[in-house]
């Protein structure tokens, strides 16, 4: 990697130099040999099977949100790592968390999305309907401020601002494995 590219990536993302170099190494290992790293792409499956994302129940959504046309270029991977890094600012994390949790991509987290989120969190097939309905109703009654039965971005932001654990838990280390 050229020094200017490295500097540029450092200026545009929240990653440190070491992290960028590690991601670069991993990317080169996974992409087909012979191609320059700026032109190579990885498939969603390849990125989903990275150790950092392997056991994440939301890995398909994460890959969908950060990829372009279902492939990852090097810069897409960097963008993803930057959002999940420790130094990222809260607004950026909340922004992408909203996109990840919005399963049906209608710009809102509605009842359907919430049910899917809870099912992914519990990761089992025998979840009672009552539990799902209860949890969904509680979440909406707590966070839905304008009573439209959906969480808009502002409402989601407001709910996450109340929780200091959000920043702590919304972190993935894409390097050093």
């Amino acid at each position, binding site marked *: 990697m050229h020094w200017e590219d490295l500097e540029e990536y450092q*200026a545009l993302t929240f990653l440190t130099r070491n992290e960028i170099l590690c991601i670069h190494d991993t990317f080169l290992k996974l992409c087909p040999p012979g191609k320059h790293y700026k032109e190579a792409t990885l498939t969603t499956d390849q990125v989903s099977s990275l150790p950092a994302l392997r056991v994440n129940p939301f890995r398909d959504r994460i890959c969908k949100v950060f990829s372009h046309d279902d492939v990852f270029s090097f810069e897409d991977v960097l963008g993803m790592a930057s959002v999940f890094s420790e130094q990222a600012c809260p607004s950026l994390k909340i922004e992408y968390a909203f996109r990840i949790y919005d399963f049906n991509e209608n710009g809102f987290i509605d009842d359907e999305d919430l049910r899917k989120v809870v099912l992914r969190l519990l990761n089992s097939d025998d979840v009672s309907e009552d539990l799902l309905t209860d949890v969904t109703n509680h979440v909406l009654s707590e*966070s839905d401020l304008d009573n439209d039965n959906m969480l808009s971005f502002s409402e989601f932001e407001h709910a996450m601002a109340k929780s200091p654990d959000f920043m702590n838990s919304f972190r993935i280390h894409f390097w050093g494995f």
Partner: protein
Amino acid sequence: MAQPLPFVLNVPEIPEDHDREPSPYDESEVHDSFHQLIQEQSQCVAEEGLELRQRGLGAAAPGTSGGGRQALVGPEDAAAHSTATLRILASMPSRTIGRSRGAIISQYYNRTVRLRRRVSRPQLGGVGRSARPSLRLYDLELDPAALEEEEKRSLLVKELQSLTVAQRGHMLKGMPLGLAEKRSLREESRTLTGKHRERRGRRGLFPCCGWLRDTCVLALHGLGLWLLAGLHGLKPWRYALKRIGGQFGSSVLSYFLFLKTLLAFNALLLLPVLALVVGVQAAFPPPASPGPVPAFTGLELLTGGGRLTHTVMYYGYYSNSTLNPPCVPAPDGGQCGRETDGLPYNMPLAYLFTVGGAFFITCITLVYSMSHSFGESYRVGSTSGVHAITVFCSWDHKVTQRRASRLQHDNIRTHLKELLAEGQLRQGPRSVCGRLRQVAVLGLVWLLCLAITLGCTVAVYAFSELMIQVRAGSGRPPGLWAGGQTPASLGMGPRNLILKMVILGILCYHWLGRRVGALRDQCWENFVGQELYRLMVLDFIFILLDTLFGELVWRLISERKLKRKEKPEFDIAGNVLELIYGQTLTWLGVLFAPLLPAVQIIKLVFLFYIKKTSLMANCQAPRRPWLASHMSTVFISLLCFPSFLGAAVFLCYAVWQVKPSGTCGPFRTLDTMYEAGKVWVRRLEKAGPRVSWLPWVHRYLVENTFPVYLVSALLLAVIYLNIQVVKGQRKVICLLREQISNEGEDKIFLINKLHSVYEKKERSR
């Protein structure tokens, strides 16, 4: 309680709308699609007639939320007259925020404008203010979005140029755009300033100077980045902590982070003491004491006595005079004068002020980090919203091991069930008998623990009295205060801490009260220092034994004998309380054994590696989910309140009230240690007011009690004002919530009206 009104359902796609004018959702940079939105809108438009009627029902029971979902009204009717409404709805600010490049650009344009006007950058809690772009920029909704976007983009570039480099960099990093987009923004906002520099550069002597200067600037910038990276990498144990976090989650990680914090506090305490007291005394050793000096055997490291008594380790070694550099006789054979070279170094004063100053700095740092941690983990109104937080924030994305992730799934399920059960309990009838029974059981358990504590205390006190009578001042007592140590794996948690703190309190009273009298002719400070050193060594040995038996042996037993695959849990609370206990011992002993923080640092480093190895090999993460941020606040608060406060009280009493021993140490001729300071101030006074303003400060601010009352009154006033402000903010939050809910109803009303207007237009056509 919110009355949810049905708003969305799936509807088959309407193909016609895709041929309309370009909308924000057509762009390549956006990661989402909007066809679902159109489907949803057509359905909601079809339901709006029904919704008007539902609103009229007013405060319906929550059950209507399920029954409110209406069946599909013929999609053909819905499609025919709703495209205009749909287009307007699709470009509503709340639907396009963060979804389209145009919206992101205008959002960030607003932010940079605000930044330039010197409004403080909104914190996490205030981000919501900037989430909606101002309506002013959205009044041209129905115009082709592409043209407007170019305008907004050029405005954003202009704004970025007027920021400083650091602010621009931070703003660029935080934008939720693709890297290519950010790069072009950066290029554009840099080129113009580059051109300005070039124009200025042409006025210079040679054209190549500009190139040289640019290269130098770039090289320096690169060096700066490299240094930053180096500093970042110097943080100890970064990789180990990441592994622990990945395997066991944030709760176990909080223990190791607390260990790191304690290391930092000890380093903060050690550095001034080392530089100003220990180092100087080691450079100018006092005259050798009479009598034979015992040889160094390895046992001193365990008992703290023997050879170590005659080193800088303990208080007794320090001289009570002013240290002068050794005088070198003048080359022409003259005598060395009184105050020839170098400054005389007043050892007693240095000792007192260094220890006092180090404690003061530690106090300020501790209070600051406690309030910072509290501020991070507590938000006004954060006790509500527990369900949302559990659903969205409880999955720790750091975790990379399958076993740990399975554990997380289980934890979340248990937590959700508990939350729901709690909610039901609160709603259900409360039986008086059941509650009384609960309270009675809890009270009984606490009484039992307090009784045990009292018993142990009395035993320790009686034992120490006995020791005084039995061996009046000869040799060393077998001071194995093992009664104070109970293994953490007994899981007694806070009651264990109370027990240890009470026993420490008894010991302190014993030392300062009784031992001083008993060891009148000997160095009682050395004795206290040695006792504390031994307590620290014993603490370390007990932690090792606890790790060995509690974790390793338990795992072997459970795997081989009981044939269970379960490893023992890592007891976070017990281990943290052990750390706090060890730190209390250090703080208690710093006055009497200035090198005790160094011993504690060595102990903590060993502890880190031992605990990490044992954790990786033998343990699993705890079952009950812990809120990591709340836990770190609790740890720091426990460190501040019983631990540091007690040590500070002990120190103050020892400095102000206790007579130092007459045979050793830097305060041997004085009545109290504090007198060293007083003597110095009197000397300054005698030298005259022109020498220094310190005596005036001492007389009117320190010895006078009026300033203390004034400062306390001011502090109380500030605290009261802050409480009132928080109360006011709570009220404002309630009002804002009501306002938002009213706005939601307004929105529904307007959408219905809009739809009916378009419907009438279509019918009249």
